[in-house]
């Protein structure tokens, strides 16, 4: 008997998603990937065979009931599909775009064993984009979904993925510190249970890395704003321009402002440097400065917007992660000729394959197995060159990665007038320093229980990069969801 309520599309490859032309797009900040039409989405959704093992659900850190929503897309019930996605994920328009699906839901898709997996991320994106264009139908579908869930609470398929228990938290107040993906997810989940949630954000816009870090051409900012403002509709309030640790500390939130619990989702935003001579020369910056100027402050629209951004003619970006790709593609759009320098080989690059591919299409060059040693400058203190050495890969180290080592006598100089350092980030120690009794690691990471996200301080929970160090959006969201369940459990025992 057929498991699907539709005829399966037997094509081995995904329905292609339209993209802007690489040459054209490298001059604008418009979104590169254009998304599916309704017809394309239905065609792709019909590639799902509704297999009974549902490995994709286990591959998703927030446990979206993937085959269920895909079935609705395949049948053309887009509002219903959106309601199913939204029941598990606070930010589907974001996740559909920036999750590394190849290592998560799509990486374990049954169709992927013989051909390409189902384009789950693309379909998630389609449902949320559709919902933005059809707000009334989407809202009605969500209301219906909520009513059904309340009538018959359904346990999660595997029982492993944390889902907030259906407890009534009305009258309880929770402060959420930071407004990145972990915090927004936690806030959304708690609000669903009737909790009064206040999000405290240091910057003037919510979203964390979604707003200041990930570029417009991958994740449009008006979309982030729309998705975040939907949380406001559900009973989450925002206090912007509020730096916790300076304006209030955690104890004041609990004792004076009367919050019953606090979630700390402050991320890992402190920049790391190369530690080489000359890295303070003018024309040199860390990736987060470039990205904050461009994304948060819209410096690419200077002087229409007041914040400027420096862009050189010859730019080197150092690093091999997603931030390096974002910085390189941003510098390219500001008019620079860009080379990415990475000390290991292509296989070790932590960046998503798709992002590396996009960068290459846009004309960004790569110098693998290359490490900067020293930046050279002119009399006015501007960077003019970057001395690098070639590297080769030696024996695997404790982490299993082959350790790069310098090739003797291989030093050479690259002409540059712009250097962007994208070599990771550290945790801001502010919360750790200002919260007595909060257990942290020597690197200022907050120690939290894996299941409940509880910290050493009763009533204080933490998750996302603040706990595990710089990682991905979806891992942060998973942590936010577990923390909401942990907080619900804690508050219902109060």
């Amino acid at each position, binding site marked *: 008997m057929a498991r699907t309520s539709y005829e399966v599309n037997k094509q081995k490859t995904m329905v292609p998603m339209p993209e802007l032309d690489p040459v054209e797009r490298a001059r604008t900040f418009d979104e590169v990937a254009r998304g599916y039409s309704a017809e394309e989405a239905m065609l792709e959704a019909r590639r799902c065979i509704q297999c009974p093992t549902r490995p994709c659900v286990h591959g998703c850190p927030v446990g979206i009931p993937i085959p269920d929503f895909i079935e609705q897309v395949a049948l053309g019930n887009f509002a219903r599909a959106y309601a199913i996605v939204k029941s598990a994920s606070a930010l589907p328009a974001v996740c559909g775009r920036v999750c590394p699906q190849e290592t998560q839901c799509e990486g374990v898709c049954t169709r992927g064993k013989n051909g390409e997996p189902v384009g789950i991320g693309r379909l998630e994106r389609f449902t949320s984009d559709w919902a933005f264009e059809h707000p009334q139908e989407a809202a009605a579908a969500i209301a219906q979904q909520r009513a059904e869930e309340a009538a018959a609470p359904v346990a999660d398929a595997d029982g492993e993925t944390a889902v907030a228990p259906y407890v009534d938290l009305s009258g309880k107040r929770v402060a959420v510190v930071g407004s990145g993906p972990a915090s927004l997810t936690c806030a959304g989940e708690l609000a669903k249970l009737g909790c009064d949630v206040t999000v405290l954000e240091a910057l003037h816009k919510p979203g964390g890395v979604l707003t200041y870090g990930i570029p417009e051409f991958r994740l449009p900012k008006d979309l982030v704003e729309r998705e975040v403002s939907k949380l406001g509709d559900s009973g989450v309030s925002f206090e912007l321009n509020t730096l916790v640790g300076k304006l209030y500390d955690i104890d004041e939130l609990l004792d004076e402002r009367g919050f019953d619990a606090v979630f700390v989702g402050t991320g890992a935003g402190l920049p790391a440097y190369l530690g080489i001579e000359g890295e303070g020369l003018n024309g040199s910056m860390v990736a987060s*400065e470039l990205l*904050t100027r461009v994304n948060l402050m819209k410096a690419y629209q200077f002087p229409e917007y007041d914040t400027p951004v420096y862009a050189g003619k010859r730019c080197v970006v150092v690093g091999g992660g997603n931030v390096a790709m974002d910085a390189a593609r941003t510098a390219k759009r500001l008019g620079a000729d860009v080379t990415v320098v990475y000390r290991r080989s292509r296989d070790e690059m932590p960046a998503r394959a798709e992002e590396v591919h996009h960068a290459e299409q846009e004309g960004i060059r790569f110098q693998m197995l290359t490490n900067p040693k020293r930046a050279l400058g002119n009399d006015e203190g501007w960077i003019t060159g970057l001395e690098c050495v070639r590297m080769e890969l030696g024996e695997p180290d404790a982490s299993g990665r082959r350790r790069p080592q310098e090739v003797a006598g291989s030093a050479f100089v690259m002409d540059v007038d712009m250097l962007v350092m994208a070599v990771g980030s550290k945790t801001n120690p502010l919360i750790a320093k200002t919260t007595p009794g909060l257990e942290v690691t020597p690197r200022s990471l907050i120690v939290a229980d894996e299941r409940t996200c509880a910290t050493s301080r009763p009533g204080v929970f933490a998750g996302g990069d603040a706990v595990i160090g710089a990682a991905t959006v979806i891992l942060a969201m998973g942590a936010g969801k577990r923390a909401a369940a942990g907080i619900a459990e804690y508050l219902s025992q109060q």
Partner: protein
Amino acid sequence: MYPIERVEALNPEVTRMVVRAPEIAKKIKPGQFIMLRIDERGERIPLTMNDCDAQAGTVTIVFQAVGATTMRLANMKAGDSLLDFVGPLGNPTELAGARRACVIGGGLGTAIAYPQAKWLYEQGCEVDVITGFRNADLVLFEDEINASSTRQIIMTDDGSNGNKGLVTQALQQRIDEGANYDLVLAVGPVIMMKFVAATTKPYGIKTLVSMNPLMIDGTGMCGGCRVKVGDEYLHACVDGPDFDGHLVDFDDAMRRGVMYRSFESAARDAVAGRMTSEGRDCGCASAHSDRKGA
């Protein structure tokens, strides 16, 4: 939104502004700063607290109209509002324990040095305040400093107040007279702070300088404000803004300070042109609403 309660020109270049921000007013301490953004298209700029009134819920800032944003700010009126106002940022100046202090303000730096001098004086510390200005018309906070210091020495570049010379000359003279300071605090242009630090170094007098690099977020996230202190780069927004003047690389700071100079002059010229063509009184207000409506 953060309502502006009072705007007052202190001299032809410098404006004092009182902003309603009750939560910040309760917390901010001498040496700490705020960042503000005028409107949706505005940039974030850092300004150090000049005064605060926890009871009234206000924070006072003092700024010089040197660029696009400060020029627009200077044209705002009581009753207007700032879109964003965040603080307190940075660390308070470490003043505790000082018995004989010299607080030095260069130009606008005087507005930032004033709360420190006042705090020290209120704690019973002997406080000399040395300030420096281009000419007598630009002198700031003379009365306030008189009320909150043991001694005030005002120096002018042109000698128009009868006291020609640099703040470092006055400092050297006080040291020679046996002032025996246990703390010197300098706030002003980087070049002035550099020479203050050079003056005190041979005597081993603890010297703090309040650094003023370019900033974007002001919360330790982007590294735009890094200052070379000893062998490492520290972030003025979270590790500072005060640093040990004998360890700061002032030449590095001066060089980094001009990185955006060409952008700044372009933006300043654009704002100046707009104000001239529309009349100085209404220029900003109409430019403001134009931008809002765009």
